[in-house]
């Protein structure tokens, strides 16, 4: 004899199956409408842990990208200023060569000296270049102009390093030490650019044979070595700029692959979810159908 099946058992089974079908449907529905596979830690604790790590990575990458953008802007401003200083220096060298020529009289030399002094001021002007309101050549004293226009030639910044984080544990110094290039002017007699320029102007005005000799030899070689130093500094800035660009491209790729991974971890596979949805829906409908039939059926309908 098989087991007795009572009416309560039947209706309980129907109810339970309907509940289960309903529960599965609502789960799939939640996934479909939110587009997320994971809405709670218990949905898949391991995947949730991984998604949290990926999110952390992703937020880090985005921040590094912002840092790279900021650093690139800084490097561009630096590069532009140094390029203009180079132009100024080229002009100064031309003037120096012309001024060293004995055929120029004192008046012509005075004019050249005046122009050299103006060029000196514009070098200082360029050294005061800013990026986003910050002086790029002041070390970490970014709110202090490195050189006073029309004032003394002493450097007002410091030797601090301004760096940007471009990866976990990787930071790149983005400022260059302009003090090593321009120096503190004549007072310091440090043979740096400002000192050289001031000396050139002085020698032009001096007019003695010693001055003329200096113009032709020492001043020219000092200016040339200053130009070499400037080229070296520009190379440093260029390589920083390159490094930032490479890092930016790498971060773009990383962001894309992390996004892809994150999406695979926590986003719903729509095709799969939709197929599940229609399967579950038809299961639910047939459960409703058969349930409605079975629960109503009874011997009472047939007894007379």
């Amino acid at each position, binding site marked *: 004899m098989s087991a007795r099946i009572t*009416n309560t058992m039947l209706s309980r089974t129907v109810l339970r199956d309907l509940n289960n079908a309903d529960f599965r449907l609502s789960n799939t529905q939640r996934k479909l409408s939110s587009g997320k596979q994971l809405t709670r830690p218990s949905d898949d604790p391991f995947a949730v842990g991984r998604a949290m*790590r990926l999110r952390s990575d992703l937020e880090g990458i985005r921040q590094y990208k912002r840092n790279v953008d900021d650093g690139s802007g800084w490097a561009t401003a630096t590069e532009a200023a140094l390029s203009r200083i180079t132009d100024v220096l080229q002009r100064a060298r031309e003037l120096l060569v012309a001024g060293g020529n004995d055929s120029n009289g004192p008046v012509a030399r005075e004019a050249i000296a005046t122009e050299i002094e103006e060029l000196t001021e514009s070098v200082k002007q360029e050294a005061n270049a800013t990026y986003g309101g910050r002086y790029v050549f002041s070390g970490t*004293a970014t709110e202090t102009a490195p050189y006073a226009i029309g004032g003394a030639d002493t450097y007002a910044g410091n030797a*601090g390093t301004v760096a940007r984080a471009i990866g976990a544990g990787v930071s790149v110094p983005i400022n260059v030490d302009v003090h090593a290039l321009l120096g503190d002017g004549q007072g310091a007699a440090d043979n740096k650019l400002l000192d050289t320029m001031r000396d050139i102007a002085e020698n032009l005005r001096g007019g003695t044979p010693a001055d003329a000799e200096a113009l032709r030899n020492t001043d020219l070689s000092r200016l040339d070595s200053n130009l070499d130093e400037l080229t070296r500094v520009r190379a440093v800035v260029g390589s920083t700029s390159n490094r930032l660009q490479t890092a930016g491209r790498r971060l773009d790729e990383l962001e894309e692959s992390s996004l892809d991974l994150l999406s695979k971890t926590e986003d719903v596979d729509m095709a799969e979810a939709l197929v599940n949805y229609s399967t579950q829906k038809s299961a639910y409908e047939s459960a409703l159908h058969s349930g409605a039939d079975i629960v109503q059926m009874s*011997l009472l309908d047939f007894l007379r």
Partner: protein
Amino acid sequence: MAVSTFGGLQTALRGLLAQQRSLDVTSHNVANASTPGFSRQEAVLSASAALKIPAGAVQSGAGAQLGTGVDVLAYRRLRDQFLDVQYRGQAMRLGGLAAQVRGMETVEVAFSEPGENGIANQLQEFWSGWESLANAPENPAARQALVEKARGLTTSIAALDSQLATAGEEAAAEYASIAGAGGEVGQIAGEIAKLNETIRSSLSSGAAPNDLYDRRDLLLDQLSEMAQVTVTDPGDGTVEVGFGDAAAPLVEGTTVTWPQTLTEPGGKLGALLKLSEPGGTVASYRAALDSFAKELADSVNAIHTSGGGPPFFSYVAGAAASTLTVAVGAAEVETSAEAPVGGNDIALAIGALRGSAAEQMYSSLVSRVGTDMSEARRGEENAQSLVLAVQERRESTSGVSLDEEMTNMVRFQRAYQASARAMTSFDEALDVLINRTGRVGL
């Protein structure tokens, strides 16, 4: 001949009465088809004592026994006590796991992970705040933004801690309302004790109180969801109920001993205790949250104070999560160990804490909550299906099947009709004997 002329009438009457009783029982079953805890009953019929006819009753000269119809021997309820024991064991497991799942749901929702509002996300914004500040250390707006983000983070941590504390308190309150004086356990125990008394007295008068048994079994089922229940039968119709790990029996005869102290009762009460007790589930989550908050504050402070500045976070030791606050204003945020405004070494170093120990502690806490929750939920589903299986088997024995009752009803009705017909034919036979016999030619 000792056989009475009217013996056949008596036999037919017995048949009528027995079928009527059976119909009564069927009707009782149908009426209770959907009563919870009801066990179907049946009238046990048996042929009544035969009439002895002395020697010479049959052709061989031997005596005989003449049937006298039917009697109701007993009214029996169909129930398998073994299934009751099984059911109560599974119901206890299910009660415990269901309570655990409900408590854990509050905890899980409090975390609101993964999502935009979770602490993980705010932590990311906090690190980004430091790195943005490193990009523009001179900018007061960046400082202010960082301080606001940090305040948001500390508020969220404190809010999570207090939500966890509330989850623990709710579990404790539910335990108190169920197990306390006047709670559900006490009420059920009181009712069982009363039923014990009624059942004992009906048994002593010889009647089997089937429906009272059902009622008591139902109460024991309900009790078994709360904690481990052991039922012993002293033999006088009462039951002795042991409850969880309580020292004295909950019900003994007509005496109730409640409230008592429970330490590991199992069932719903056990789960509530485990959630709320010191060192329990919720307390361990709070401890983990505390160590996360402490690690966060310590690691940030260590770097922030390295330049001689004030600590960034402050907290009370031992309650780090609930007391974590930002100790500095926007102007006091240190970005560099050196004086100049453009330095950013400290800000960079703090920003590099992204993905460090504190963050890992938090994400492992979230994973732990998720694992505990999904384990409890799986266990609950499992226990649910086991309870259903036992319930099915019990229902298969004790449940009322309307089809069966209908069939029985037809059977008893027909038997009743047949008995009545037998009585009619006797009546007609007697009519011939009494009214017509000997009246020849009239």
